[in-house]
């Protein structure tokens, strides 16, 4: 999650395999526009409730992280990760 906070730019979409509420908190802190859960994962109720309260859309994708990233990249989605420099 710290990696997300360190490297993601505002309005990015976060792809993750983690489903706990901390994902939503992390997303909220780093101004993430939406969260996509990979491999068809369905987050627990408390994650959904928190996302609802913070107004962050949740999406579930049947694809794994690698395939989903690849598909989105090929479809022309740019990376909003920036290198971590001190």
């Amino acid at each position, binding site marked *: *999650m*710290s*990696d997300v*906070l*360190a490297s993601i730019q*505002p309005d990015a979409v976060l792809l*993750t395999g*983690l489903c*706990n*509420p*901390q*994902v939503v*908190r*992390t997303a*909220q*802190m*780093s*101004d993430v526009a939406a969260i996509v859960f990979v491999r068809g994962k369905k987050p627990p109720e*408390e994650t959904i409730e928190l996302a609802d309260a*913070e107004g962050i859309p949740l999406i579930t994708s049947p694809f794994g992280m690698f395939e989903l990233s690849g598909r989105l990249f090929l479809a022309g989605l740019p990376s909003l990760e920036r290198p*971590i420099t*001190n």
Partner: protein
Amino acid sequence: MPDTPPEKTPLRFKGKVITDELAGSITRVEELAYILKISDVMTHQVKTLRPQDTMRNVMDALREYRISGVPIVDEAKNLIGLVSTEDLIKCLANQDIDKCVLEYMTHDLVTVNSFDHLTEALKLFAKTKLGRLPVISEKGELAGILTKGDVTSGILRALEHEYQEEEVRKYRASHLFEDIESSRTSLILRYDIQRYNFTDGGAASSNIKRALVRLGANPQLARRVGIAIYEAEMNLIIHTTKGGSIHVEIEPNQISAYIWDEGPGIKDVNLAMQPGYSTATEEIRELGFGAGMGLFNISRCVDEMNLKSDFGKGTHLTLKFFLKGEDIMGDGHSNLKEDGNDA
């Protein structure tokens, strides 16, 4: 929105494939049509007449209530028909004013359900060119009438409500510092953080970030402060023996955060500051934490950072954010070029 089938989309997108570009231009009003229920905007108190009433009763009702149509209901409040102004004109042309309403009323009615979303009614208005739609409740009774005017004022009410709530909050908060006079005004937010409380983990930093936005902080500043304090908050949850405290002091030209705990303390502060160095357990890593980026991340977000730790005693972390130019808080969103000496 992109995957919504065409028939479920706002009218101006009807028949078009919704591309991302189009979806991006869906307005808040169009969104509201999917959120508001017909029962939220319809007219509830509706003047109705009975099947045994006459067209003269209709004429009187239209005059008295200044309406353009009257629903006819039976004893169980079931809708039987509707007499419109047009029906009344036909009747008057026939000089038939004392005839029963059943003779002139429209039987085949287009109705909507009170529990449906507004968008269903909008589709019907567009398709049928009708001016009003009787609304039927879950029990099958007449619940109200929906006119295009009801839709407009309902949406305006909803927009106004949303706008006012947030604007009033922001206005009050953003004028806080200029409204209160003192030699040095500051706002202190205090939070107690419990060890291993992952359920509420991040709630404090989330509230701090929200407070800053309401106070008029620009998004980048709120983000920097939010990320730094979130990392510190998670450290208290993950690494301390008894949890800890967060105090944030907000002043017009600087934000200070004090985060401290009573143990166990950090053995080697320099090592802890290195990106990738972590003492987190496997269990913590599985939750997505313990990448060893926390303290390093904090240092990147703040203007000043002071970390003191005594192993066995505890850790004190002081963070400072200096606000310059338009970042200065409490000026009610105006772009103060100079701070002045009122702080």
